[in-house]
């Protein structure tokens, strides 16, 4: 954009910058407060209120939460579900997206409509639960993955991206004796890395954040992923429902411990984020809604 050097132009720019800086700060401050709070002692947290950089460093909270196997186990479940789930989802999504991206495929319009329609109308919680139950998936890790294996939205974004790859490339590969699988894996996918990275991240985030499917389909608390455990520790222990699942005899955990659990549940996603972040803008652009 062209530089505006008039007084009002500069005033406008300065105001705009300041306001955005404040908004950005407000966005990250709560999380920084939680991270800092998790690395200090309860006494220090109580005394200095708003901690941004701990004056007294302490790993007590982390030592405590990792002293039992519960958090380890839940982390393991979450990591496993995220890895396997993302692989399964990407495999099924890219196969379907590629098939539907080919214009000479008879019946693609019908299938396309079937997919889009599921975004507008669905059977709802109970009927879906009954299907999952009938398939014998209750209390299995598969219930966290298979019922949400493909997101219609992600599939359409990927399909649109594949459609923009010049058809000539596919034609020439075909002449060289490549079949459709060959074309997809040797030509189309390598050309689609930004889109694949974006969609993988979307899936990974969804699986890491799995909560609803876990409380719906897992009765066995030994199988809980980290998000469900986080809710038990922070939300239910905030003195809300004394009748709630947590044992009333146990006093609610310290603020520092709650904060440490939040950090542990967030960290993996925050570590992946910088690596994939540069792709989002492109990813969103190519998706831009229109089927």
């Amino acid at each position, binding site marked *: *954009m*062209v530089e*505006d050097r008039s007084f009002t132009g500069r005033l*406008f720019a300065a105001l*705009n910058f300041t*306001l*955005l800086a404040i*908004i950005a700060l407000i*966005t*990250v401050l709560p*999380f920084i*407060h*939680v991270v800092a709070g998790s690395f200090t002692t309860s006494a220090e*947290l109580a005394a200095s*209120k*708003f901690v941004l950089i701990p004056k007294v460093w302490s790993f007590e909270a982390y030592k405590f939460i990792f002293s039992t196997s519960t958090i380890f186990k839940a982390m393991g479940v979450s990591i496993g579900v995220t890895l396997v789930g993302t692989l399964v989802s990407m495999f099924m999504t890219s196969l379907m997206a590629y098939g539907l991206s*080919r214009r*000479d495929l*008879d019946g693609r319009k019908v*299938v396309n409509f*079937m997919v889009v329609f599921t975004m*507008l109308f*669905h*059977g*709802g*919680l*109970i*009927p*879906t*639960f*009954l*299907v999952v139950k009938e398939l014998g998936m209750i209390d299995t890790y598969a219930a966290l993955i*298979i*019922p949400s294996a*493909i997101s*219609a939205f992600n*599939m359409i974004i990927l399909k649109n991206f594949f459609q923009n790859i010049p058809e000539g490339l596919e034609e020439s590969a075909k002449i060289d004796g490549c079949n459709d699988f060959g074309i997809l894996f040797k030509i189309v996918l390598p050309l689609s890395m930004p889109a694949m990275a974006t969609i993988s991240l979307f899936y990974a985030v969804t699986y*890491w*954040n799995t*909560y609803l499917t876990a409380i*719906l389909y897992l009765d066995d608390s030994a199988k809980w992923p980290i*998000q*469900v455990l*986080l809710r038990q520790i922070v*939300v239910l222990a905030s*003195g*809300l*429902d004394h*009748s709630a699942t947590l044992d009333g005899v146990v006093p609610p955990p310290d*603020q520092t411990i*709650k*904060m440490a659990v*939040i950090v542990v549940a*967030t960290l993996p*996603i*925050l570590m992946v984020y910088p690596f994939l*972040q540069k792709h989002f*803008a492109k990813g*969103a652009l190519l998706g831009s*809604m229109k089927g």
Partner: protein
Amino acid sequence: MQEVTAQASTAQPVLEASRNKNEVKKRIWRNRWLYVMIAPGLLYFIIFKYLPMYGLIISFQDYKPYNGIMGSNWVGMKHFNRLFTEPDFLNILKNTIVLFGLNIFIYFPIPIILALMLNELRGNFFKRIFQSLLYIPHFMSWVIVVSISFVMVTMDGGIINDLLVFFGFEKINFLLNPSWFRPMYIIQVIWREAGWGTIIYLASIAAIDPGLYEAARMDGAGRLRQIWHITIPAIRGVIITLFILKIGSVLDLGFEHVYLLLNSMNREVAEIIDTYVYTAGLRQGQFSYSTAIGFFKSVIGLILVMTVNKISKKMGEEGVY
């Protein structure tokens, strides 16, 4: 030769049809691997999206898990009639609509304003930093978002209440006070989604021809006038598309978020259709009644999307489909 042509012309439609059929068959055979690729996905949609739609018929039955859909008794509209006579349901419907209204009137414009502000930043360095920071909350689950705010607003040792005391106010029990449920809900929605929501607007702003701004400046238009006369009209289509999609989510306000904030003290304002379906259906085993509620919700959502889409098309916009 002439005979042959004459014959051919009468037989033409038949021949063409069979040739077309053959061609289609050939094309299908040539694309057989593509069908293999689509099969798993299609199967997924049939089993996990369409089978549940078939399952909606249990809302016309007294469904008993032991008997299954085939063996349960038909009761017609009984459950739907119950919907409109039960005062509980009207309250839940009201709560759902209020949260929907907050989403549309308070949340929806914010990403647009934020995108316009980000777009006015000179220097890509800060623009990128602000964007990265604003996107982060979107990647946190509702459990994390709710947990962070609980840690901040709790009565003993929460930073917000400590600040209130510091400035000479009384402590507020945000979590148990029903009048704080809606503000907390919408603040959390804004905190988590507003930054992420800018992406799509920024992308479509980036596609605007810079010459338009140049020309407007020649005509003496200031920044605000440029935003008003060029940027906003250029992204109107995207705004309308996203608006329709938002309307479509009318009664889909996110089960997780509300469920996490719900407790015995704020139930009066916090119970929405989704959370009710969960408790009444899965916790209390009223499968048929809660499926009827869910069905009602999905139909309203579908009707709203179709209506808004039609209106936007009448107004000369593209619509979603």
